[in-house]
């Protein structure tokens, strides 16, 4: 019962690892002991891994070990792929936002915002920047693009869109979608999204993405023509279904857990930030009252008048400075939000993997059962309790002809089953390989981005402190002159 595999891809270690994991998890398996052994027998196959590095490659899935060659390949891939062909050719901007009114699908007037995408050929040395090609897109079209990408590349962590509605707002900031500040931040977020996709080694080559950037009118039809919506159903299934994978890939489990925790932490941070921003706003604005009172008070004083008056101006300056400070802080919040939404994308990759693995396990289990049945039928022994077995025992054996035809049918079924398992296996392997490539890339990106975000934040805070020092030093000067 040897199943051959064709490629000598070092990733076959996953395959063998699966079997080892099965054997190891015997205790935890819900299958009866015999079946586990049979399953192991089914899945095991001696591989000639001429290209692989050493014999200790029977990696157990619980480790995050991949072979060193594989790891190296990953890194090279990631780094090289960063320089995508697309970005070498084009410069992409989301330059403006505009309000439009029109009739929507239910024939009602609505106001919505459109965003101007500018595409320019990348600057060549000594060349003058050419006029950009432009088109207008609304948010819902971005959403459609993203859904298409999610379905088409389930093993890729698809960059998130900026939020649909303003969340985690502190009360002075408008939660209105048409508010100009919100629109502006969204414009930046959309540009960021496009750049992320354009710099992704896999996504940047997508035809539909390219059309999104270049074909204003015909794009929608092109997307729908890909028929991605059929695949969308299975995606939905993977996200919402409750199923249990018997031998979960520990790397993915760990990743999902990390992603969930990161989601919690960032959400918490954003909530705290909103409250802190509120309070800080209050502190600064109350100082504006000082400005007013000092000014009024200065009118009744002779000696102190000038000092009070100028101190009052500084208090006004101080109170006004909070608006800029909080706006800059908003940028940090947006960076955090991007990664908050990224956690959803990571989670869905993990779930998709679970689904694929689940289907593989089901197929393998199905195959094993069929083989058992065939054996039973051939030898006449009942190893497993089955209704058919019982009835035949009770009501007598079938005729030899019946038996023959049943055997033949089972053989056929088994063959098909083996094909399915092979396919599912390949699918799973491919998925894991491609996904883990992208996950490594994502991890690097995340570490760098978040570190830069923290630096920017610290710099911003320092600048805020400097302003504070300035204002209060000036105020002190004024008081000293009183």
């Amino acid at each position, binding site marked *: 019962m040897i199943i051959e595999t064709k490629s000598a891809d070092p990733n076959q270690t996953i395959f063998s690892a699966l079997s080892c994991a099965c054997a190891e998890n015997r205790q935890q398996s819900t299958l009866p002991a015999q079946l586990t052994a049979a399953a192991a027998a089914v899945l095991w196959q001696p591989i000639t891994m001429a290209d692989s590095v050493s014999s200790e490659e029977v990696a157990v899935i619980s480790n995050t070990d991949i072979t060193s060659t594989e790891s190296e390949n990953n890194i090279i*891939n990631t*780094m*090289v*792929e*960063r*320089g995508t062909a697309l970005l*070498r050719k084009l410069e992409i901007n989301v330059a403006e936002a505009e309000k439009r009114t029109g009739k929507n699908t239910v024939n009602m007037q609505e106001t919505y915002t459109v965003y101007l995408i500018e595409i320019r050929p990348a600057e060549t040395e000594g060349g003058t920047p050419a006029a950009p090609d432009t088109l207008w897109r609304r948010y819902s079209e971005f959403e459609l693009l993203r859904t298409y990408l999610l379905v088409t590349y*389930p*093993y890729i962590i698809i960059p998130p869109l900026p939020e649909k509605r303003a969340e985690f707002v502190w009360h002075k900031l408008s939660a209105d979608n048409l508010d100009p500040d919100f629109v502006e931040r969204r414009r930046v977020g959309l*540009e*960021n999204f496009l*750049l992320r996709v354009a*710099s992704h*080694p896999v996504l940047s080559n997508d035809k539909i993405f390219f059309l999104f950037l270049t074909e204003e009118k015909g794009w929608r039809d092109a997307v729908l023509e890909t028929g991605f919506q059929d695949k969308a159903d299975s995606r939905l299934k993977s996200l919402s279904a409750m199923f249990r994978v018997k031998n979960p890939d520990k790397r993915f489990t760990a990743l999902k857990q*990390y992603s969930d*925790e*990161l989601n919690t*932490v*960032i959400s*918490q*941070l954003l909530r*705290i930030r909103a409250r*802190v921003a*509120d*309070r800080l706003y209050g*502190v600064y604005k*109350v*100082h504006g*009252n000082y400005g007013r*009172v000092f000014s*009024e*008070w200065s009118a*009744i004083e002779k*000696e102190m008048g000038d*000092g009070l008056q100028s101190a009052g101006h500084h208090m006004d300056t101080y109170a006004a400075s909070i608006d800029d400070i909080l706006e800059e802080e908003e940028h940090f919040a947006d960076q955090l939000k991007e990664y908050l939404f990224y956690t959803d994308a990571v989670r869905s990759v993990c779930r998709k993997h679970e689904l694929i693995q689940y289907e593989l396990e089901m197929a393998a289990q199905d195959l094993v059962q069929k083989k058992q049945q065939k054996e039973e039928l051939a030898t006449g022994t009942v190893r497993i309790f089955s209704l058919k077995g019982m009835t035949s025992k009770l009501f007598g054996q079938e005729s030899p002809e019946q038996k023959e035809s049943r055997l033949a049918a089972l053989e056929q079924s088994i063959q098909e089953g083996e094909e399915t398992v092979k396919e599912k296996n*390949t*699918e799973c392997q*491919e*998925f894991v390989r*491609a996904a883990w490539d992208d996950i490594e890339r994502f991890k690097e990106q995340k*570490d*760098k*981005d978040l*570190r830069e*975000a923290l*630096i*920017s934040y*610290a*710099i911003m805070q*320092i600048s805020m*402190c*400097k302003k*504070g*020092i300035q204002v*209060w030093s000036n*105020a*002190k000067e004024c*008081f*000293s002159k*009183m």
Partner: protein
Amino acid sequence: MSGHTVPADFSEHMLDLDEDEDLEVFTKNTSLPDGSPMPNSPSSMVNQYRLEDDDEGQEAVNTKDIFVTVDHPESQVTAIETFVLYRVVTRTTRSDFDSSEYEVRRRYQDFVWLRSKLEEKHPTLIVHPLPEKFVMKGMVERFNDDFIETRRRALHRFLNKISEHPILSYSQHFQVFLTAQDLAPHRKQGPGFLSRVGETVRAVANSVRGLKSRPEEFAVMQEYVDDFSNKMCCMDKVTQRIVKEQREYVDELKQYSPTYARWGELEEELTEPLKGMASCVVQCSKEAEEHIQHLSEVLVPALHEYVLCAETLKAVMRRRDNIQAEFEAKNEALLTRKVEQEALQEEVDVLADRMEQANNSLKGDWLRWQRSMKTDLRSAFISAAEKNVEYYEKMAEAETLVEQKALTALTQLVGALQSPPRHTPSSSVLQQRAATLPAVRSVPTSAL
């Protein structure tokens, strides 16, 4: 505060009021306008107290020969009541004090007694206010530690203000207050409750009659007092509001720390900068709390004190008005009634003198008070501004640490200098890196 701020006017009137037992003190210890030491104080024992004068260019050397402190509050429990006793320590070189050092215990009521005596004696001098009897806002018990401490400080300031006053510090009552082990026998003497009632009745009667006209300078003063009172109330409210907002801000700020710490534990490469953020937040919270503390201890009491001063000023103005009203009433009686001219004339003369004296006292004290107010509030504002600067400096320090931690890790990772902040820093860096990397290797698309 004594010494050079005493105008010549005062000296005259001090001599006039010779009949009062207090005045021996006055005539003996008139300070000279230029602030040089009193004639009969042994120069060798005079403590030179150098005032930090905030006026640029001027250096005033003030001779302070009496130092009073209020400290060591202690709860006293008797069968009837519970109250707090404060220790009052006096060190002085004044000859009219038998000893050079005194230590007595006084309760809040004793301070009230002292002040009322001072006001009685000098109705148109500006006697520094006492801290309030009760605090209405919030549920503050009388014996809460913070409340006692706040009160102690205010009582300390009160006694110091009195001791710095050129006239009040020589009051007999003041001396008794500082020196008598048992104040009770002294409290029973002098015009008591009934006389105070009498005054009130007279005051009411006079206000009903109304003033004919207030002299120009006092009209201006009244207007100032009313405006000043308003401004002080506003300042007080604004400052207390700022303290409240800052407290709430710090409470929220603190929440950052455990969250950043938790995140740090979750990560690998980012652990250092995230933990850095967590400790930075802790540091900033501490600084902010210190800041609040400072505000509460320096600016809030100073402003509140001057809210009370404004009330004192109003009372002084009222009393002055009353004195004038009394004179005017009697004067009118003199003009209209034909009988008892002589007797009335005498009374009118007395009242006229009294009025003139009251006006002059007030005029003199007014200047002194204004300068004192300016000095007090200016130093409180400067202190508050300095504290703000310090707060921001410390915060910048803490944030710089974070930046450094994150930078070191980043340069290790990327091997390049920090990219300038842009809206999409990651993509800009990516594009930069893209420009430097070799040609693309084609990636097999998924066979799914």
